[in-house]
């Protein structure tokens, strides 16, 4: 018996056969993969997971791939969970951890979701994989398509930064640069799924793609000795991964993988320059997420009309979490803070997460002994340009190549 038995609408509950589709035909709500939970209960165990591969595929029982022969992997997942004592000391947190997902093969969290998406596509006979991307997703899709030997199309706005285009192009995908902004790319790809036989990772195979996110929270619990933390700080773009982390916590509890029965507080982080979920969370109508025009350096999470924004607010509220946002300066300050205290260089999206962590800590959200985990989802080299300003070298001195000059200008 297959473990994934179909798709179900999160809004109206309508059920569908397993197929490459992401929207309910009845109410246009999002579709989620449905597992045979009774069958899973018989096989899922800590021991079985611990004996699995040293990658996120040790959780394959809880992912929508039936046969390991179809798994397309570059060794993603099982990234370090770092106890952040120096950053914690600055923020008054004695049990602060960072899940450093910039250590994935293409240096972002996206490797998890793409590994699952491409594995699913290959298992279901797709020959071409595609995506619409601001950079990180296209990077991962191009790499994993190369690994799988699948044809690949990535759709990007024509003005995407050259460095990002280069890190995508090296994998030799078909790069379609759309003369327009992200909205235009978005609309074009929505229409393309109707007329191409392609698996669009973040569109028509989204229900399976999204499942890969869960492994981040599975790993966090396992690395904490099979315990869930008190609170998790997660960056919000579409909100898709936030929803899956809540689902992952539920599955860890349901299958008896973690001790206790407590669900962590789930807290979301946005940049104020693109904060539709934050705006709604702090309004009288949190179930009404109004689109915004993104204007932030945190481009990898700059989603103006997030598909899962409403669900983020419900989860944050129901678990005792919050949704907080930070300014552009606070993002850069947080990138520097993380680098200075923990030696981890994160991209702007990570700056948003650490910025929100710092903001909440300084506002007295925690007593100090709670176990708090922040998800650092991408590497700093992806957005190094934001640090290129002069004050990034405040401790730099320039000297002549002489001992005299050294003694005069360098304080030991």
């Amino acid at each position, binding site marked *: 018996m297959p473990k994934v038995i179909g798709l179900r609408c999160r809004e109206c509950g309508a059920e569908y056969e397993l197929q490459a589709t992401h929207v309910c035909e009845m109410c*246009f709500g999002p579709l989620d993969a449905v597992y045979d939970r009774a069958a899973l209960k018989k096989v899922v165990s800590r021991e079985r997971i611990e004996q699995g591969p040293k990658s996120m595929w040790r959780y394959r029982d809880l992912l929508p791939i039936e046969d390991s022969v179809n798994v397309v992997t570059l060794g993603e997942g099982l990234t370090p969970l770092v106890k952040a004592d120096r950053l914690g000391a600055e923020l008054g947190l004695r049990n602060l951890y960072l899940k450093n997902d910039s250590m994935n093969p293409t240096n972002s969290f*996206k490797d998890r979701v793409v590994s699952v998406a491409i594995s699913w596509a290959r298992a279901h006979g797709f020959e071409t994989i595609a995506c*619409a*991307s601001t950079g990180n997703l296209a990077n991962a899709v191009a790499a994993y398509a190369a690994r799988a030997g699948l044809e690949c199309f990535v759709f990007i706005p024509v003005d995407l930064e050259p460095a990002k285009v280069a890190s995508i192009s090296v994998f030799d995908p078909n790069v379609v640069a759309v003369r327009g902004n992200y909205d235009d790319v*978005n609309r074009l790809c*929505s229409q393309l799924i109707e007329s191409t036989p392609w698996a*669009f990772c*973040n*569109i028509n195979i989204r229900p399976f793609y999204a499942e890969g996110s869960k492994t981040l929270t599975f790993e966090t619990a396992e690395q904490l000795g099979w315990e869930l933390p008190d609170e998790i700080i997660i960056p919000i773009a579409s909100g898709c991964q936030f929803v899956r982390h809540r689902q992952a916590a539920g599955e860890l509890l349901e299958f008896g993988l973690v001790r206790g029965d407590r669900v962590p507080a789930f807290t979301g982080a946005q940049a104020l320059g693109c904060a539709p979920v934050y705006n709604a969370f702090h309004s009288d109508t949190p179930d009404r997420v109004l689109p915004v025009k993104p204007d932030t350096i945190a481009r990898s999470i700059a*989603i103006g009309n997030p598909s899962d924004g409403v669900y983020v607010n419900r989860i944050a509220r129901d678990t005792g979490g919050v949704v907080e946002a930070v300014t552009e300066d606070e993002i850069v300050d947080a990138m520097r803070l993380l680098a200075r205290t923990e030696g981890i260089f994160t991209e702007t999206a990570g700056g948003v997460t650490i910025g929100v962590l710092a903001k909440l800590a300084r506002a007295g959200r925690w007593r100090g002994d709670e176990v708090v985990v922040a998800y650092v989802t991408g590497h700093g080299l992806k957005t190094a340009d934001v640090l290129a300003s002069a004050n990034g070298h405040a401790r730099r001195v320039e000297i002549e190549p002489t001992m005299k000059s050294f003694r005069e200008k360098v304080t030991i």
Partner: protein
Amino acid sequence: MARRRLRLIFGPALVKEPVIYQLGRKFEIVTNIRRADVTKDQGWVLLEVSGEPEELDQGVAFLESQGVKVEPAEGDLVE
């Protein structure tokens, strides 16, 4: 024939305007409302539209010219 799933977002000035009716009258477009949440201040409608692609493009442009924000029903897909 093509079909698209749209989310129309209205501000207070447009809540009372029959823009979906006008869309069907001005263009060869079949409209089908799937879900909606409209109050006196604002509202959204999830709408399926069917027609020739050029007609749909013109219809979307018309809605936007009226001040309606038009998004894909499932939100932003670019990641």
